[in-house]
Structure formats: structure tokens, C-alpha cells
């Protein structure tokens, strides 16, 4: 029977598209879980500045360059500790050391960097080393700045150096240092000068074992495949990991709800009497309960864990109108002759319910189950958008929530909302299209309509 149904599915183009999208989502989900194991995903998403400092803030995905027709910079970093920056040490006879770090990099981009940051890793006992810096532009201009004492884990942000800002013509330093002075661009439309830049950092240490390492991070305006958010987090982590979370939530909720609904409806109709009556009354009470409000209350008062919300969702979705629909069909099936035959040979109640009544309903269960998956996927996202998403897991809805609270649309960070929205829509549409086609195949009333 299922083989035949499958062949029938192929007659619906929308079902094939839906099926393809759903399968793709499953592949992505499996890839995400294998590529980024759970712990790693949590570390990448909740790790803190240490994990994210290589990424720019609120940067669009790198492939947007293609649409803009510009070559905006991605972040890059040069570190004296791993050899990407040249470090020379000169021992002076008076016991001090002169450490020179030379950061040389090519800058062929059409946009200024978002920010320049130096992260120092300095070893000293009592006397702070002293740092001086020199910036060389491709056209031979030089800027001298810095002249600071550094602590063990000092961070030097170019953008916050007022003196440097004055030296580069009152612009923000990350712009002024790259500014093509001799172009006749109007104010506000300045372009960076392309070419090879050099930052020479000269440190003087005053103790024998003292050492200086520093990483220069040049933050770009675009980042990676998915861009970054306000906390410099790479959105691709959450987008990838949102897939298994959304699929599991949707599948478990849909499966749990429809299977439990069917079993309860079967039990109610089979035993009849007060059991049936009670199920009907519970269904009526459940209609009175405010579904979304209760979920929000559970999320706010008890636990925002996705598993609590999932359990509560299933619990509240069992006793709904569909239990009445199942009941109506079970009432018909209950009277059919094969049930009578089963009773005649002495089959017990459990056997009749689970071996005779329920299997009869599975063709009707499948389309409903598939069609309800998107509802639950979007429910999880809806709750996350209201701020009661899972506190740990990265999900699509939480990206939208972050974007909403940071006014992403108002500030023009469209990618931030569009990426999770596109994935949500694809998942929702995929399952919905498949479900619709299944409904037309399995539901005799819709045959030919």
C-alpha cells in the first residue's frame, strides 16, 4: 500500500518539491550535528568575547559583495605569536629589550575596516613594557601614535584613540588610516587607498623575562557565509544548529500529538461510557484554556527549556478538535464486521484497539501529522520571538528575537532576519506542501477535488 502511495506522490509536483526540501533539511541537520558537535555549538554560541573576537559586529554575509558589486573587506588577523607577523627581538646592554613586531598586509578592498584592535599578551613582573606604533600607508605617509604602557591582557582599540583621530584629519582612525587623501571624493564618500599597509609596533621591556606578543585584528564589513550579530557571533552556527532543533521540535510535537490523540480517541470510542464522556469533557475544557498564554506562562514562570515547552505543547494539543474527528471515524470503524470477527475469536480490548482499530487509521494520520509539523516549527519560533526561546540552544527563532530587540530592520541589517526567516519558510513550506499532497492521496473525500 505504501509503495503505491509513494508512486502516487510522484504525480504531484508540489509534493516532490516539498519532499526534496524536507530531505535537504534533514541532510543539513545531520551535517550540522556531525560538523559542529553539541558542546562545540554551545561554546561557539555562548562562549563569550574570547570565542567571537575575530568576527566583526553586525556584518553582512560575504556573498553580499557579489550583489553590491563591491569588494568589502572580511576580517583578517595577524599575530606575532603564530608567525603571521614578523617579530624581532634586540637585547640591549642595559638589560632592556627592544621588541619590534611588523604587521604587513595587503588591503585591496572598496570599503574601510569596521574596527582595528590590538590584543596584547604581555609577560612582565612589575614594570610595564612601553609600546610605540607607526603606521605606513602605501603612498608613503607615516603616522606615529600609541606611546602607552601595556598590562598583561591589554586591548587597544584604534577607534577610541582621540589623539590618533586628530592626526588623521579628524576622521575615525579606522577610516583615516586607510583614507585615500588625494582622491577628490566628497566628504562622506571617501574611499580607502588600495595597497600594502604596514603597522610597526615597537615595544620596550624593562625586565629580563619580559615578552610582548600582540594580535592585530582588522575587522571587515562582511563575514562568512551568514554574517554576524551584535555580539560578533557567527550566525551560521545558529542557522545550522537551528535546523536539527526545529526538525526535532516539529517532528516530536507532531508525532506525539497525533499518535497520542489517536490512541486516546480509540480507547474512548472502544470503551465508550464514562471514558468517552470524560475525554469529551476534557476536550471542551481544553478549548477554554488559552493555549499560547499558557505556553508563555510556562516559559516565564517555570522553565524555558525546549523540552518543557515541547511536553507542554503536546499535552495541550492532544485534546483538541482532531480528537473529535478521530472519534467520529472510529465510531464507524467500531461497527465494521472485521472488528466483530476479532471479538468473536476472543481478542482482548488492547488487542482490538492496537491491532485492529489504530492501524486502520494510519493512512489518515500521516497527512495530518506531516501538515502539523510546520505549525509546531513555527510555534517554537513564535515563542522564541516573544523571548522565551530555549536558554542554551541556538535556534532560528532566537536569531529573529535578537534581531528584533536590536532593531535590525530599522538599522538595515536585513540579512539578520532574512536568513532564519528563509530557513523557517523553506521548512514550513516543504512540510506543508508534502502534507497537502498526502492529504489528497490518503483522504478519500478529497479524491479528485
Amino acid at each position: 500500500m505504501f509503495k503505491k502511495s509513494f508512486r502516487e506522490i510522484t504525480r504531484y509536483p508540489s509534493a516532490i518539491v516539498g519532499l526534496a526540501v524536507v530531505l535537504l533539511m534533514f541532510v543539513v541537520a545531520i551535517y550540522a550535528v556531525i560538523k559542529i558537535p553539541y558542546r562545540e555549538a554551545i561554546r561557539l554560541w555562548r562562549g563569550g568575547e574570547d570565542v567571537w573576537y575575530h568576527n566583526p559586529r553586525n556584518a553582512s554575509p560575504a556573498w553580499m559583495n557579489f550583489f553590491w558589486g563591491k569588494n568589502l573587506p572580511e576580517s583578517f588577523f595577524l599575530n606575532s605569536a603564530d608567525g603571521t607577523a614578523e617579530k624581532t627581538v634586540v637585547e640591549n646592554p642595559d638589560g632592556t629589550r627592544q621588541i619590534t613586531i611588523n604587521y604587513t598586509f595587503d588591503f585591496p578592498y572598496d570599503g574601510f575596516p569596521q574596527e582595528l584592535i590590538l590584543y596584547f599578551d604581555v609577560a612582565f613582573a612589575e614594570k610595564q613594557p612601553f609600546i610605540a606604533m607607526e603606521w605606513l600607508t602605501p603612498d608613503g605617509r607615516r603616522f606615529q601614535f600609541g606611546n602607552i604602557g601595556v598590562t598583561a591582557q591589554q586591548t587597544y582599540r584604534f577607534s577610541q584613540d582621540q589623539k590618533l583621530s586628530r592626526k588623521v584629519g579628524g576622521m575615525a582612525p579606522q577610516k583615516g588610516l586607510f583614507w585615500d587623501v588625494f582622491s577628490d571624493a566628497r566628504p562622506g564618500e571617501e574611499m580607502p587607498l588600495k595597497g600594502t599597509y604596514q603597522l610597526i609596533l615597537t615595544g620596550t621591556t624593562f625586565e629580563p623575562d619580559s615578552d610582548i606578543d600582540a594580535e592585530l585584528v582588522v575587522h571587515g564589513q562582511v563575514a562568512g557565509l551568514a554574517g554576524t550579530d551584535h555580539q560578533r557571533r557567527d550566525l551560521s552556527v545558529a542557522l545550522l544548529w537551528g535546523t536539527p532543533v526545529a526538525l526535532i521540535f516539529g517532528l516530536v510535537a507532531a508525532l506525539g500529538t497525533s499518535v497520542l490523540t489517536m490512541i486516546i480517541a480509540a480507547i474512548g470510542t472502544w470503551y465508550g461510557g464514562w471514558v468517552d464522556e470524560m475525554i469529551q469533557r476534557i476536550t471542551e475544557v481544553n478549548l477554554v484554556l488559552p493555549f499560547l498564554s499558557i505556553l508563555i506562562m510556562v516559559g516565564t514562570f517555570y522553565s524555558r527549556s525546549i523540552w518543557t515547552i515541547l511536553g507542554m505543547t503536546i499535552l495541550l494539543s492532544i485534546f483538541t478538535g482532531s480528537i473529535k474527528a478521530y472519534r467520529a471515524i472510529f465510531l464507524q470503524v467500531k461497527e465494521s464486521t472485521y472488528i466483530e470477527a476479532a471479538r468473536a475469536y476472543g481478542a482482548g480490548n488492547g488487542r482490538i484497539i492496537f491491532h485492529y482499530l489504530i492501524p486502520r487509521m494510519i493512512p489518515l494520520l500521516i497527512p495530518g501529522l506531516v501538515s502539523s509539523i510546520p505549525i509546531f516549527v513555527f510555534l517554537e519560533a513564535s515563542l522564541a520571538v516573544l523571548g522565551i526561546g530555549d536558554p542554551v540552544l541556538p535556534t532560528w527563532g532566537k536569531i529573529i528575537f535578537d534581531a528584533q530587540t536590536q532593531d535590525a530592520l530599522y538599522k538595515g541589517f536585513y540579512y539578520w532576519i532574512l536568513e532564519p526567516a528563509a530557513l523557517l519558510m523553506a521548512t514550513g513550506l516543504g512540510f506543508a506542501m508534502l502534507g497537502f499532497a498526502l492529504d489528497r492521496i490518503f483522504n478519500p473525500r478529497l479524491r479528485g477535488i
Partner: protein
Amino acid sequence: MSVETSTAPSGIEASNKKAASSTFTRVAKYTLARVVTLFLTVVVGVFLTIMIANMGGYVDTIMRGEIRERVTMQMLASPAISNMAPEQRDRMVLDKIAQEEERLGLNQPFIVRSFRYLADALTLNLGRAKNMTSDSGSKQVRLIILERLPPTLLLMGSSQLVLFFSSVFLALTLSRRYGSLWDKLVVALSPTSAAPPWFYGIFFILIFAALLRWLPFGGMVGAPPPDTAIEYTLDLLKHLLLPASALIISSFFLSIYNWRTFFLIYSSEDYVDMAKAKGLTSRDIERRYVLRPTLPTIITQFALLLIGLWQGAIITETIFNWPGLGRTLYRAIGQYEIPVIVASTIIYAYLLAITVFALDFVYALVDPRVKVGSGS
């Protein structure tokens, strides 16, 4: 519930009388049973809501806070007391608070009190909020809700009525042109309703507010509100357009699809073919043979739509900053304002019960095959 039994005709007059009186008792019995069941349903539903909303003793805190505030205010308002020495005054306040808490039974266990909350809710004694106030500054839950009702009715009412009537009308048209290009288009587009309204809302904000700058990002009127009535209305409509469209579009195609399928099933009945064979015009067929038997369903859906307006649209209102009941309910939950949550639930429960009750009689009016209280 009671099945009619045929009585032997002993005389036309007697049987008429008997039929009339049996109809009356049947309807009366049925009405009574129905009222009792529905009321019990409301009671259990509201009690469950109270239990869920109270976990952690939040309502107790609210009550205690309210008493403390009221007593202190009363004491300070009286010049005789506010002129007393501070220690003496504090002791008096504390005494009065303890007295009040005892009077309201806050020294009783929660389970006992939960029944009193239930009784308050059932008698629509909505009480006062803890911290939340209406814009006019009142903490009366009744006023908070009444103040938020018009915006919600405007948003939900306009969107849901447009959605309902346009989808029923379009579905009727489509069911006549079954298999046409438009029909196929609606069937193909119906999976788009998998996404909730707020999802479309975000897209609308992106396109019409952020990119094109035609319409506002959210809110109900601009700041400052326009002076003249005409400008005010225009401004209101401008703000209404995006959230209302989001609410409509998210259910639009599925709603048409469902109604169309529903009408198609009824159009394939034998009596419709019969009517066609008789040569009746398609308008007559539609009105007498398709719409008439589907009327109870249409009325039910419409009635449920009307009471659904009450709950507002929590997420859509939140996304669009629409100052309606849904957003208020969401804020109430965030601030642990149980009285507001319970008030919203009890009013919805009553509306639902009354509607369900009334629908039984409406069915009997519009469908001659249905009799109140006969069969189940």
C-alpha cells in the same frame, strides 16, 4: 439527548398538545443540561488557569502587596494618623495589614484560597493589578482591559472580517470554476499559510517600512497624534495597514482552500446534480442547494471568529507595537500580573460557552433537520 418516541395517535388535539408539551420539556431539559455542562467546563478551565498561573505563590504576593499599599495609603490619608509618632504609626499600619490579610484569608492555605479566586473570577470580580496600570493610571483590571479593547477590536475586527468574507466569497466563486487556473493557484499557494501572521509582518515591515519607507514600522498613531479627526483617521489607517495585511495574508489561501473544498463536497451531492438537471440557474443552485446546507458551518466559523477577536494577536501586536489586548496580555505575563491573565481567560471562557450554547439554537433555526435536544 432524549430520543423522541412516537406516540399512538389517540386524538389529533391531544397529540398536538402532547407534542407541544414534550417539545417544551425536551428543550427545557436540554437547555438545563447544556448550561450545567458548559458552566462546569468554564469552571474547570478557569480553575486550571488559576492553578497554572499561581505556581510559586505569585498571586499571594500580589494580594499582600495590594493590601499593604491600600492600608498605608488609607493611614496616610487620615490627618490624625499621619501626625502620630513614626513608630506608633508603623505599628498601627502593620496591625491593620495583618487584620486585612486575615480578613481576606491570606493566612489560609493556597488550595482554599484558589477556590475563592475562582469564585471571584466566575462572578467577574476582576480585581486590581499589581503594578500594571491603564494609560489613565488605574490599576483596575476592568479598566486596563477596556482601554485596550478598542485597538484590538479595530485590528482583529477589520482583518478577520475581511478575511472571512473575502475567503468565503472567493471560495464560492472558485468552487464554480473548479480546475481553473485561479483554482490551481489557490491550491498551490495554500501551504503558505503554514507561517503565522507575525512572520509575514516582519517581511511587510522590511519591505514597506524599512526599504520603501511608505508605512510606519509600528504603533497605532504617529507621534504627536494629528489634530483633526480626518487626519487622525488617515494616520490610524496607515498604521493599521501592515498588521492587518499580515493577519489576513497568513490565513488567506488556506482559508479559501478549505472553504472551496468544503463547498465542492456539498456541490457534488446528488440533489445539486438534480437541480442542475432541472435547469436551475447557478445562482439559485448556489443559494438554495449549496449555501443552505452549509449555513450552520458558516455561522459556527463566524461565531468562533467573533469571539476569537477577544484574545487579540499576541505576537503580531508585539511585533507591530500595536497597543491591543494581546500585547497587554503578553506584558501581563512578563510582569506576573495574574489578575489580568485570569481576567482574559474567564472572559474568553464565558464568551465561548455562551456562543456554543447559542449555536445549538441557531442550528435549529437555520436547519430544519436539526431539533434542539434531539439526538446527540
